[in-house]
């Protein structure tokens, strides 16, 4: 049975003043997943999120959330959102901000509100403009988590936080998802945190998704094949599909594959290397090989 998708984009394009921020982005976020959306700064992560929440209009292509067109306000009723800047109303106090937000969401969770107020030690009467970056992030997270949302969209939720604070925020997020039926779609350029909490991942580069899938599948599919020769490595071309990147360095030839490892190894063996070694790769290596490096 096909898994149900809570977010679906097809050939999504978005241009700002002639600059293409998204160039045919196609994504499918399974319901119930923790979906890490990885990319370098300026890759198009925030633009994608803005399109999904109706803050920016797609230039072409399709984007649907809950099966609804992205300009439908119903999406925002069922979605919790934390922006990269954690921009809240500076002129309100923490308590005023919570009292302001709650009535917009019929499924507001007063029990979670109390729990997170205590857990995050938020100062109820302090003005938001006087909050530290970390406390502001915690408040933004509280406001998103208490909406009773089916979907959380978080844009760089830990940006600007020290490692301890970032860990606290991630743990709170994981604990929340474990207890609620919530899908999380979060953007990041921190590979470690995506590796830590995501079960699905998309890597976006220059407005295109270059890698998508379940993290376990990716780890299984992506492998590094290292060939060592007794002379300089040959200029090799491979017919087998799945070669992502080839690197030659002296007597060593390294191949990053995204599948079909056996066929690649078979082809490589025909070059009579001294040794062939297949090693698993980390998400960081997949990321670096798919969005950077030229050869």
């Amino acid at each position: 049975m096909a898994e149900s998708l809570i977010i679906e984009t097809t050939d999504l394009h978005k241009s700002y003043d002639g600059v293409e921020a998204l160039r045919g982005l196609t994504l499918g976020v399974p319901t119930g997943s923790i979906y890490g959306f990885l990319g370098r700064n300026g890759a198009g992560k925030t633009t994608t999120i803005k399109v999904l929440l109706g803050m920016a209009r797609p230039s072409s292509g399709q984007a649907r959330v809950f099966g609804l067109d992205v300009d439908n306000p119903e999406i925002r009723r069922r979605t919790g959102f934390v922006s990269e800047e954690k921009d809240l109303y500076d002129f309100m106090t923490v308590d005023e901000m919570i009292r302001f937000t709650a009535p917009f969401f019929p499924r507001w969770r007063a029990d979670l509100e109390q729990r997170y107020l205590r857990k995050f030690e938020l100062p109820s009467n302090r003005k938001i403009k006087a909050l530290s970056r970390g406390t502001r992030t915690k408040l933004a997270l509280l406001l998103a988590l208490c909406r009773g949302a089916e979907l959380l969209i978080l844009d760089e939720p830990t940006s600007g936080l020290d490692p301890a604070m970032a860990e606290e925020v991630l743990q709170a997020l994981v604990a929340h998802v474990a207890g609620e039926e919530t899908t999380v779609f979060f953007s990041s350029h921190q590979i470690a945190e995506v590796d830590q909490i995501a079960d699905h991942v998309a890597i976006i580069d220059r407005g295109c998704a270059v890698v998508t899938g379940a993290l376990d599948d990716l780890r299984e599919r992506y492998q590094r094949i290292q060939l060592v020769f007794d002379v300089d490595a040959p200029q090799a071309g491979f017919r087998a599909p799945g070669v992502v990147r080839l690197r030659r360095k002296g007597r060593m030839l390294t191949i990053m594959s995204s599948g079909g490892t056996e066929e690649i190894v078979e082809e490589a063996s025909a070059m009579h290397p001294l040794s062939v070694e297949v090693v698993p790769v980390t998400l960081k290596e997949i990321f670096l090989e798919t969005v950077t490096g030229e050869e």
Partner: protein
Amino acid sequence: MLWYKSWLETRWRFLIGLVLLIFSALSTVFTYPQVLKLLPMVPQHINGEIGRRIREAAELARDFRGYVWSDWFRQNLPEKWTLFAVLIGTGGLLAHSSGGGTLFTLSLPVSRKRLLGVRTATGFIELFVLAFVPSLLIPLFSPAIGQHYGVGSAVIQSACLFIAGSVFFSLAALLSTMFNDIWRPLLIALGVAIAVSLVEQAPQVSYGIFHVMHGESYFRHGALPWLGLLASAVLSVALQYGAMVNIARRDF
């Protein structure tokens, strides 16, 4: 809750305006006995436009109704009220410097039209209070100096000011949907208001927004400037419509 947010966003501008205008209205009333004493000293031989204006103001001040119109409804109130109309009209969804939260607001399950509509309605209510409350203090406190000023006149003069002056509020609101800061809309709208005011002060110009705001035809002939009020209202609605269209189609 959007009303509450709009109130929090604009309350200091509104309250400062209200205190200033109330103080100014009371000052108009309670300085009248002093003005009467000074009238005989007004020089009669100054030539040119300035001389004409001084003589006209002195002539109007010979009775309390003329003095109130000249000092309050023609001068103090339009100047200060227009300043606060622009200040209150500036800001809103795009103005990060007015307290941030643009993306948070847009993540709420509310249409952009409603967001702008509530902000506009809050501004109109505040400007209505700024136009009427200080003006109504004049008939209330006039007996304290042995004078009388009609409540009906105060209401009609304030209505002229409110309807015609709303153009400047709407202009500031439109400009606020075009720029991401509060300073450019503020300065441009104030610049336009000052330019219009200067043009209308020329003796050969007898029509304009400030002429309608002053309610001169009502003061002099008891006739409301219907055409001017209608034109101002239409212009104000058109500017608000432009703001609505702008905000609805904008990318954030």
